């Protein structure tokens, strides 16, 4: 059996190269693979296109990645939040490209890529600025936007546990985009707190089957993003 466990953080993130499109899990702090992100920062990777829901919290996680100059473009749903001040500084200074995608459409575009489909028709955003330049198709008298697949070179995701084959389970609302992104990239790297034996995860409760996981890095402890609030 292939050993998917990365021997070091450096080892885990070394396939992330300059210019890559990187899907990063999380919604707010839960589910953001902050340790993997730190590894990329340490490698001084440049010119990444990052696909993730938020634009970072405080100066950690995705915010750190931008702060250290690793990111040239951000594809996200909700960039303007108080805690995303690093993004705001860079965007206002013209140092970051931004593409806003509705949240359901963002998730569906990645799933479409993962499922080998060519696109989908959605009622979301019809008639809005976010439909500009997109094809409209009428089905049974209703207008839909044709949305195209969004694939990553790499997905960085966070899970609660991995078994030694690479099957994953998640924790509460930290699940969010992670299982979808796992399907939608050429290489999926997972940050997990714990590795368990191959029989310890019930096959009925596995959320991400091992076939979507290329490697995982075991942190030894589960930590929610440093930006988590208690309110």
């Amino acid at each position, binding site marked *: 059996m292939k050993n998917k466990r990365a021997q070091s953080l450096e080892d885990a993130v070394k396939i992330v190269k300059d210019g890559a499109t990187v899907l990063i899990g999380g*919604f*707010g*702090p*839960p*589910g953001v693979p902050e340790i993997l992100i730190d590894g990329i920062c340490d490698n001084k990777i440049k010119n990444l296109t990052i696909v993730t829901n938020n634009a970072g919290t405080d100066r950690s996680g995705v915010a750190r990645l931008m702060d250290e100059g690793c990111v040239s473009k951000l594809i996200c*749903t*909700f*960039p*303007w*939040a108080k805690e995303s001040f690093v993004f705001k500084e860079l*965007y206002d200074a013209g140092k970051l490209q*931004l593409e*806003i*995608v*509705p*949240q*359901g*459409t963002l*998730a*569906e575009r990645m*799933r479409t890529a993962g499922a080998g489909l060519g696109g989908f028709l*959605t*009622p*979301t*955003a*019809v*008639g*809005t*600025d*976010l439909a500009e330049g997109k094809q409209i198709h009428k089905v049974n008298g209703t207008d839909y936007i044709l949305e195209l697949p969004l694939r990553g070179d790499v997905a960085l995701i966070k899970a609660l546990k991995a078994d030694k084959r690479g099957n994953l389970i*998640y*924790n*509460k*609302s*930290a*699940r*969010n*985009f*992670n*299982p*979808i992104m796992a399907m939608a990239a050429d290489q999926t790297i997972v940050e997990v707190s714990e590795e368990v034996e191959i029989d310890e995860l019930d096959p009925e409760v596995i*959320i991400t089957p091992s076939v979507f996981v290329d490697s995982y890095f075991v942190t030894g402890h589960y930590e*929610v993003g440093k930006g*988590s*609030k*208690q*309110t």
Partner: protein
Amino acid sequence: MTDRKYLLTREQIAACVAKDLEDGWLVNLGIGMPTLIPSYIPSDYDIMFHSENGVVGMGPPPLPGEEELDLISAGKGLVTLIPGGAYVNHIDSFAIARGGRLDCAVLGAFQVAANGDLCNWRLPQQKSGSVGGAMDIAAGAKRVYVMMTHTTREGDSKIISERTYPLTAGGVVSKVYTDMAIISVEANELILEAVAPGITPEDVQSATGAHLNIENSQEIKLNL
């Protein structure tokens, strides 16, 4: 401008919305003002709250000592899960939102037009906005209720004949709850359903940028 002392508080508006949510509904609450609603749901009602980040059956904030940092709302505050709630991934969460499973979504807004157009994701002077799940939820919910102040801080009406702000979803709003009134959006007109105590239907009309049918308006009964 109407005397501010007669305007409903945010809590009073929330209580008005809560009164119109039906037992058994699945409801999505937007960030901001709508998050006040759960406190005003009758305790014998079974209303489930959906949070776009994959929480089906979102409960109130945790008690001290019971916080779970991985369990948050769309607004990123810590929450709980009710008994019988479930976690889903983003695809299934938006299948719920887009697929017509939400009996109601209560959202904030910058503008609502007489035809039900909703504008709540970007101000015209901004280079960009934060759409989040608003466009999906507004397009997919069975009913979209809006909760907002009746006018901007500058006194401009947020309810107008035709929208001037960037669109979130076209023709979706069916009811608007403001600090002055409750207004239904019908196919051909805006119906003034109820007005805050101390405010007249004419006051509401003059603070509104679209024609209102004020014939049958009631006074809002407040319990708080």
